[in-house]
């Protein structure tokens, strides 16, 4: 039976969050979250690519040969990544100067292949598209939480804007600039959310 839209979003945003529960997309979660602006661009890129590639692969699901389904998935996802790259470069070269390297990394994000294989390959186009959007949002939520902690502590800014009166009270916490801090923050966040969800599940039984 097809999942409802609410069920799809609830699953990807919380219960089966791609980063916290499925442990997918970790690399970019560690790399880009020291600056919130970069994080937001990466999240937008991943959301678009996941949703669109899920849609296209779902439409093609009955004609893709099983032997080469992964190659087909990579080809389709890569095509969307190139489209995102070229469109940003054409519309806003200033933005592209900062996020260009990240865009090429979108294809390496295992969430996109993961959802293509786990959902789009065996579901109809609209739910697949919504699943892509929901997975992208679930990923974005986690990255934004980490970035909101790392940027102020590491750089004393938020979205590039200096924190109020930071000359008086702020001291740089250097480790927050490094990916190392993301390891710790992600682990703590995963622990907290999993604990919360397990207690909720136990309470429902």
């Amino acid at each position, binding site marked *: 039976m097809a999942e409802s839209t609410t069920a799809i979003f609830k699953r990807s945003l919380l219960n089966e969050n791609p980063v916290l529960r499925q442990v997918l997309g970790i690399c970019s979660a560690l*790399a*880009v979250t*020291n*600056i919130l602006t*970069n994080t937001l661009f990466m999240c937008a890129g991943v959301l678009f690519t996941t949703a669109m590639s899920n849609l296209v692969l779902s439409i093609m699901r009955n*004609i*893709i*040969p*099983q*032997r*080469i389904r992964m*190659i*087909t998935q990579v*080809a*389709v996802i890569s*095509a969307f990544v*190139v*489209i995102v790259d*070229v*469109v940003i*470069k*054409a519309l806003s*070269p200033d933005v592209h*100067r*900062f*996020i260009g*390297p*990240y865009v090429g990394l979108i294809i390496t994000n295992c969430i996109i292949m993961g959802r293509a294989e786990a959902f789009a390959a065996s579901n109809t186009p609209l739910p697949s598209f919504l699943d892509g959007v929901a997975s992208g949002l679930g990923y974005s939520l986690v990255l934004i939480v980490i970035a909101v902690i790392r940027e102020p502590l*590491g750089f004393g800014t938020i979205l590039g804007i200096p924190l109020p009166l930071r000359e008086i009270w702020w001291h*740089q916490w*250097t480790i927050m*600039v*490094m990916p190392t801090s993301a390891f710790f923050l992600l682990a703590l966040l995963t622990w907290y959310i999993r604990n919360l969800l397990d207690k909720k599940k136990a309470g429902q039984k």
Partner: protein
Amino acid sequence: MNTRNPVYVVLFMIILMVLIGLLLSIINFVTKPTLARNEELLKNRIISRAFVMKPSDESAEQYRKLVTDSIRLEPNGTYLSTDRTRVGFEFIANGFWDKIRGVIVLDSSLSTIVNIQFLEQHETPGLGARIEELEFTDQFKGLKIDKANTSRQLIQIGGTKIAGSNNRVDGITGATQTSLALMIGLNNMLSEKVK
């Protein structure tokens, strides 16, 4: 259709690749003029900012006019402002990941830096890539080049401040290698041009 048939598999792959290739070629063809215009605007904007010159508006036309009217590219590759008060040199540094290319502009006595701007860099986003940010580049405005003391660097990026020196700027936290690479590249270029 039988998706297990090897002929079908091969045909499917060929058709898919041709379609994707065609789509991306069309997008490339359609965006090529826009990308070329953006590239030119970006370069003109970087050179204008390096010379601390502002056009009357932010349009590509005004930036082109400013660069052609107020800055001359000499045959030896040096940029010279038409009033001859500022000289710009392109530099290349071997960055942490790849080449860092930029323009550094000095006053006519070649002893004070007017500004520095970057044409190209592939450093780590959020770390080394922050060399492009104003907070870093603004430090170079008015920086003196230490020509007198041959045992020291002409300019210093990061590291301990030497007492009495006025040729040092802060590096970028977490981007030691990029800061060092930039310092080496700039000092190599400057020692050829100003000593």
